[in-house]
């Protein structure tokens, strides 16, 4: 009993901890409610994001033309703060791979992280199995060039320019290597889209890609592409953002009136 009392005391000793726990609890509650509604088929209004609309169209065009699509999942690693971005890259790859597998088409995925590579291999293998082409799974559709971002950029730029790809989609953790890949592929007749969440990378990606998703839009990939359940988390994000804006405005007003130290 004593360890539990100690644990609760240490939790309550920090006001920052209590605030963070309150925010997390509210986030969890909204998440469960909205995700439940989304799974039951409730529609949530979402604004159009051109890059995700283009991915839908590109997948169809790829099936018609037979040209593969490249999905770069970036240099985000599992176990770091970039993991969530890397998982969004994996979500986009899942969408493209499933459609390619259904029509026995090729797809190319690249990453700079071994754990994302093995997860993507699982995604592709499952997609091929579900489509009834399990024997067509080839390991060379997913490529790892090294954990260093520039090494990854050099390998990926070489891979997408060597063969004729319809599109180059870069979603995940990208820094300056995103610019490197995007610019190296400029001479090719290839649609380039994608995005990044890190503020430093956004400007570079915005400059080099035809269409770009920025910041939180990266995390909406699943909801916009093929995962209905992600609409619940998207609604949660929107609600929490509105609450954060209201809290900021209230804090500014209170500070201006001298109520906050």
């Amino acid at each position: 009993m004593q360890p539990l009392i100690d644990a609760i005391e240490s939790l309550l000793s920090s006001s920052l901890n209590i605030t963070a726990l309150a925010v997390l609890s509210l986030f969890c509650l909204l998440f469960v409610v909205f995700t439940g509604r989304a799974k039951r088929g409730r529609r949530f209004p979402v604004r159009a994001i051109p890059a995700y609309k283009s991915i839908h169209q590109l997948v169809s065009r790829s099936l018609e033309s037979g040209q593969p699509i490249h999905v770069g999942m970036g240099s985000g690693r599992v176990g770091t703060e970039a993991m969530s971005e890397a998982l969004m890259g994996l979500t986009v790859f899942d969408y493209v791979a499933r459609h390619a597998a259904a029509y026995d088409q090729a797809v190319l995925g690249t990453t700079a992280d071994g754990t994302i590579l093995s997860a993507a291999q699982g995604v592709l293998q499952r997609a091929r199995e579900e489509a009834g082409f399990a024997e067509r799974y080839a390991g060379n559709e997913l490529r790892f060039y090294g954990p260093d971002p520039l090494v990854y950029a050099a390998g990926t730029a070489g891979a997408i320019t060597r063969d004729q790809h319809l599109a180059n989609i870069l979603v995940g953790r990208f820094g300056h290597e995103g610019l490197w890949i995007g610019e190296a592929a400029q001479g090719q007749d290839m649609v380039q889209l994608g995005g990044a969440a890190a503020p430093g990378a956004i400007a570079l990606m915005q400059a080099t890609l035809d269409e770009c998703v920025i910041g939180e839009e990266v995390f909406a990939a699943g909801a916009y592409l093929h995962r209905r359940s992600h609409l619940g988390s998207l609604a949660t994000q929107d609600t929490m953002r509105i609450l954060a804006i209201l809290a900021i405005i209230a804090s500014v007003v209170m500070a201006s009136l001298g109520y906050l130290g």
Partner: protein
Amino acid sequence: MKKILPMAAAILCGLFVLTDFFVPHPSIGAVAAVLVEGATILAAFALFLGVVNLLSVHGRRVAREARGRGLGVVLIASLLATLAIGVALPGSAALNWVFDYVYYPLQATMAALLAFFVVSAAYRAFRVRTAQAAIMLVSSLLVIATQLPFGQAISPYLPIARDWILTVPVTAGMRGIVLGTALGTMATALRILLTVDRPYV
């Protein structure tokens, strides 16, 4: 069972690490540290899988494709030679030589090319005739002009304008992006913790 066990493990591990963040108790901290260390070891092993993938992709190219065969041979030979030196003579002068005279110069060369890529990308971005591109162009020119040694000589108001751009609209925009990213990261983490997303199954 094939799906339930990984899901249960993911939930338990996630909850333990999350609890450790809020409750700095030694016993919880010890378990969380083991879990985080385990993730690091798994990531290191995954790097080995990456090397196997690299050898497999390029080995296949060397064996079956005429185009790019030479580059594949160079890559595999370089990888195996560096690996052999690293394993046989760890921390040796020979290994340092590989990094100092091959790897770092190549990396610096690629990094140097970025400057040209920035210019070509910026040229294309500014050429697009939209209001956003015009605002970006004017702001960029203003900030660049005021960074130059004679910037203040052009007008004493230029540094003030630059500071205002950097501290008000740029900082506000960046904070908005960071706030949205933080919410997105929380949502992604919860999707995994509550098994809405199961990338590991």
